[in-house]
């Protein structure tokens, strides 16, 4: 079973994140780039599926030059190879354009399952998996907290507000995962060394079958009009508990009419 994992490089949430003043896109130079956290769970799930069912795990990343760091990390977890779609024409693409571009790039790869994190920590839209399924015309098995494959049938537990839905489809399918699904492995020294030799197929937008008139900031379906630092919260009151901390909070809640 061949599996493609979509991996996005995002700014490290532990560092300060900024937008570019000129084009209002993410300032990727301002912070360290790391693999989007939920994508590590996607890689782990792909590796577990490969361990059970055989096949190959391919990483598919779209992004600027520095995204190669995240690709190496993904390969060092145990993925077999990578496709890196890297083109200035893609800069500033919004979530739907990204889904379109990834759908086109997937057309150049053979796969049975596409796995991705259910959302990224930077834009946090949570729509790419669904939009990708729409573009590809494939079953949408998103927000999975458990995945089982039996022959050509795939079954997931889809996380919901009330618990979960069991959802079933025929392969190929698009699967997005939530944190509960597994515990991502750490790369071993041996795998890190091996990863340096694994093939990374770099593609331009044209190589990936992407129509550049449909992607990039100039063709985006949405536009950031302006942005500003959020006003700081007014400083609050902090007291040390002297045995009456609970009562003091109750006073505050009464004052604010919550009680």
């Amino acid at each position: 079973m061949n599996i493609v994992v979509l991996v996005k490089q995002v700014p490290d949430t532990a560092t300060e994140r900024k937008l570019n003043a000129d084009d209002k896109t993410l300032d990727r130079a301002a912070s360290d780039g790391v693999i989007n956290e939920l994508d590590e769970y996607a890689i782990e799930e792909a590796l577990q599926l490969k361990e059970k069912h055989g096949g190959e795990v391919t990483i598919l990343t779209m992004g600027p030059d520095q995204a190669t760091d995240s690709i190496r990390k993904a390969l060092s977890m145990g993925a077999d190879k990578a496709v890196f779609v890297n083109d200035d024409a893609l800069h500033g693409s919004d979530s739907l354009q990204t889904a379109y571009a990834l759908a086109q790039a997937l057309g150049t790869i053979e796969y049975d399952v596409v796995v991705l994190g259910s959302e990224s920590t930077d834009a946090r839209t949570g729509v790419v998996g669904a939009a990708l399924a729409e573009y590809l015309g494939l079953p949408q098995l998103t927000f999975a907290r458990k995945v089982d494959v039996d022959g050509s049938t795939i079954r997931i537990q889809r996380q919901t507000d009330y618990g979960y839905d069991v959802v079933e489809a025929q392969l190929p399918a698009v699967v997005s995962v939530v944190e509960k699904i597994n515990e991502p492995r750490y790369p071993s020294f041996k795998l890190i060394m091996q990863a340096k030799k694994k093939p990374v197929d770099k593609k331009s937008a044209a190589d990936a079958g992407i129509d550049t008139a449909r992607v990039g900031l100039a063709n985006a379906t949405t536009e950031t009009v302006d942005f500003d630092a959020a006003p700081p919260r007014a400083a609050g009151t902090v007291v040390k508990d002297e045995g009456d901390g609970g009562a003091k909070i109750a006073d505050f809640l009464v004052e604010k009419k919550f009680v």
Partner: protein
Amino acid sequence: MAEVLVLVDHVDGQVKKVTTELLTAARRIGEPAAVWVGDGAESGRAALAEYGAEKVYVATAELNDHVVAPKAELLAKLAQDKGAAAILVSATAENKEIAGRTAVKLGSGVLTDVVDVNADVVAEHSIFGGATITHARVRTGVPIVAVRPNSVPAEAASGAAAEEAVSVEVSDAAKTARVVERVNEEQGERPELTEAAIVVSGGRGVGSDDFSVVEDLADSLGAAVGASRAAVDSGWYPNQFQVGQTGKTVSPNLYVALGISGAIQHRAGMQTAKNIVAVNKDPEAPIFELADYGVVGDLHKVAPQLTEEIKKRK
């Protein structure tokens, strides 16, 4: 005036509060038209009328038999047939997916997790864990906007709520991911986390899977219970209650953080709460930078006292 489609969130025929917030926002843009999928529209109709819905489009429950795609087909069809000015949904995980697929069908853009929207469908976002405010608009097609619950205050205004059945021929392409079972893991009668006006969350400081100290306080306030990633990762509380970057985003009127340090991962999920109360042993915990009222102390002493005080004063 052009119609603004509002996808209704409902449980057992009861309209959820966020839908009344969406109808309020929709009235700024055009004429609100509610879209009801499933049974119970008759019992929900009064609430929709009370918040200005002029129409209620009703589609059958079968649309729920497959994941997301059939509802996107419904919204796309209605948007086209009615010449809708915009589509509003609540920013839940599933509704954002519906918004995304609908946008692809219509060649539209989608704005997710917005905290406000004006008459020109310019939407406000709070991003990077609340550090930055942006305004954005959709450039192509019918704008589709997913609004965070508790962001737009609901205001009543009467509407006709004229019911109209809508039949959709769900395509085979939309029937590929079939829901075979729904499993309810919900705990008790507490309000839903993202909708709740008050949320009480517990973190590492709770110290064990005995979350009763958090739950008792939540119940005294009629609040939902949340948990930090540390608590969920430790197996102390179920995943679906996780508040933060990789969990739910909440925007309640009051957020009570018990034993939560306030790492960016957590703040990203609760920073837009209107009032924040924190209890933590560590006076240096970053949660105190956000707190309107903070107590440095042991939550196992402070929270039970607070619960008792609330019961006394109610």
